[in-house]
């Protein structure tokens, strides 16, 4: 193999490798993590964050506008303190509310921001005070079951079918 030909093929090889990397960079992936200088940090306290993870998206009206950067447990308030970076292009009023939501029934959890009406905007290091925690499926189901049991008990007393449902009847008598 002649020297010039080797150079040619190696050049082609390197170019093909770079094209493959560019393909991976622009067609396959996205730099979803915003550059640190283009973001500002906010925080919010939640009673329960459920399964929220760092790097989870922050969405407003369903559009991703930032990422969760850190989750710590605050030993003074006994709440979870979530800090997140938001794109500088988007400003939020001070009475914005944050809620931990789930995309779909079993999807990933994210923080949804609902803008308020205040004139003053949240600034770097600001805190969102109006928050609602993640819905824990087990709690939801147990609450549903308890209310069902309650209903069943009331129905048994009213309808006089106590003999068929002694357990719930007993609970009501108590």
């Amino acid at each position: 193999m002649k020297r010039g030909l080797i150079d040619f093929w190696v050049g082609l090889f390197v170019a093909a490798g770079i094209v493959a990397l560019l393909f991976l960079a622009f067609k396959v992936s996205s730099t979803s993590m915003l550059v640190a200088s283009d973001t500002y940090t906010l925080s919010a306290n939640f009673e329960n964050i459920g399964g929220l993870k760092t790097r989870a998206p922050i969405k407003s009206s369903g559009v991703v506008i930032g990422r969760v950067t850190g989750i710590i447990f605050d030993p003074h308030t006994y709440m979870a303190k979530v800090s997140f970076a938001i794109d500088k292009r988007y400003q939020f009023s001070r009475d914005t509310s944050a809620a931990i939501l789930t995309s779909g029934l079993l999807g990933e959890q994210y923080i949804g921001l609902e803008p308020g009406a205040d004139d003053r905007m949240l600034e770097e290091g600001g805190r969102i005070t109006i928050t609602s925690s993640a819905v824990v499926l087990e709690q939801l189901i147990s609450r549903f079951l308890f209310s069902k049991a309650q209903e069943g008990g009331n129905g048994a007393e009213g309808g006089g079918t106590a003999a068929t449902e002694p357990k719930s009847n007993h609970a009501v008598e108590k």
Partner: protein
Amino acid sequence: MADVLVRFFSRLGAPFTDALLKLGFAGRFFVAILRHSPTSLLRFSLTMREIWFAGVLSVLIIGVSGLFIGMVLALQGYDTLVRFGASSSLGILVALSLVRELGPVVGALLFASRAGSAITAEIGLMKATEQLSAMEMMAVNPIARVVAPRFWGGVISMPLLAAMFSAMGIIGGYLVGVQLLGLDSGSFWSQMQSAVDFRLDVINGVIKSIFFGIAVSLIAVFEGYDATPTAEGVSGATTRTVVTSALVILGLDVILTAFMFRGV
């Protein structure tokens, strides 16, 4: 009695001492390669030839294997995902498994068996035919002239080959997922884009392949240089290159993955 015990323990200890000695020799050999790298990198045409030998000639096997693996991933992934009504996430499955794991790992395994074994055989045969000794006689350092260019040729080729493997695999996944199974092309690409992070996934994959490139190239040149200078010795060294490379690649992969994707 004491004699038997001494013999028993020395027989038990011998393999460990040998392995440790070899590891130490490999470490010093690595340092020697790095020390002689500037001289060999200045004459870049030597390294150029090795990139051609290790990289360009591996493009075909890497590209075709990548395409097939991407196609198989798409076929198998679709079969499972469609049960959960999540077949539109096929792009994510194919892209993440290729970019994070299969591209660097399978690429490196193929590279070790295609190029690594050839490098070992070449250097081993040079040693067996006393070409390396002849070079030393002519005051040419064989590490700078023969070993370092082959090492750097492998290190430079590996990340490029791994990127090609991943790219071809994703194209294969696209061909099967969109053209054959009839998924929507738009959601295939956009879901993939939203789930694959450039810095976390693509760059980490490239970092992995650089580590694998260093490991495979070092093992290949070392086994060749260390080979017993006989026909049998060279064949044994070639086998050891492939086996050790495979084990080291998979072991390194576990360690690197544990550092990179801990799922915080």
